[in-house]
C-alpha cells in the first residue's frame, strides 16, 4: 500500500477516535442536559465521520473500488443527529423546564412555538373579545 495513503488513513482513524472520546467526555462533564447534548450531537458525529472516511480510503486502497456503504452510513448519521438532538431538547423542555419562569419571552406577539400555538392564541382571543379591543 502507498505509504502516504496509509498515513492518511491512520490520521483519519486517530482524529476520529479522539473526537469520539472528547464527545463522550463532554457527556459526563457538562452540568445539565442542554449542554450535554453538544458532545454527542457534534463531536461524536464528527468522530464517526472520520472513522468512516478512513474505512472508505482503506477499501479503495485494498480492493481498488469505491464502496457505497460508508457514504450511506455517513449521510444517514449526519442527517439523523440534528433530528435526534432536536427531539431530545424538546422532550427536555416539556418535562423539566417551566416556560413562564425559566425561559425568556421571545419578541413579537406569540410565545414559544413548542408551548403555545397561533390557534390557541386565536381561540383565547375569541373567548375574550374585550381583551384585544
Amino acid at each position, binding site marked *: 500500500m502507498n505509504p502516504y495513503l496509509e498515513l492518511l488513513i491512520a490520521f483519519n482513524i486517530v482524529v476520529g477516535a479522539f473526537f469520539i472520546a472528547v464527545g*463522550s467526555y463532554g457527556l459526563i462533564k457538562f452540568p445539565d442536559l442542554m449542554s450535554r447534548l453538544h458532545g454527542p450531537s457534534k463531536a461524536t458525529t464528527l468522530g464517526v465521520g472520520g472513522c468512516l472516511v478512513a474505512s472508505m480510503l482503506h477499501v479503495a486502497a485494498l480492493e481498488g473500488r469505491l464502496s457505497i456503504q460508508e457514504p450511506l452510513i455517513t449521510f444517514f*448519521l449526519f442527517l439523523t443527529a440534528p*433530528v435526534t438532538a432536536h427531539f431530545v431538547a424538546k422532550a427536555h423542555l416539556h418535562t423539566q423546564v417551566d416556560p413562564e419562569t425559566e425561559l425568556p419571552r421571545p419578541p413579537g406577539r406569540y410565545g414559544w412555538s413548542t408551548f403555545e400555538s397561533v390557534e390557541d392564541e386565536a381561540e383565547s382571543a375569541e373567548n375574550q373579545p374585550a381583551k384585544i379591543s
Partner: protein
Amino acid sequence: MIDYALIFGFVAISAALMMNLWRLAAGPTVMDRVVAVDTIVVNIIALIILYGIWVQTTLYFESALLLAMFSFISTVACCRFVLRGDVIE
C-alpha cells in the same frame, strides 16, 4: 502504521463507551439516559467500522447501517413516548 492507529482507536472508543455507561447509570433524568444510549450506539458503529479495517473485510458495513437506523428510530420513539405518552397516535 494503521495497526497502531487502530489500537489507539480501540482504546479511545472503549474509554468513551465506559464514560457513556457512567452517564447511563448516573443520569438524573430519563432524557439523559436516552442521550447516553444514542451515543453508545454511535460509538459501537465506529467500533464496528474500525474492526472491519482491522480484519480487512467489508462484511460489517451492513450491520453498522442497520444499527444507525435502529438507533435513530429508538431515540425518536423514546422522545415521542416521553412527550406524548404514546409512540404512534
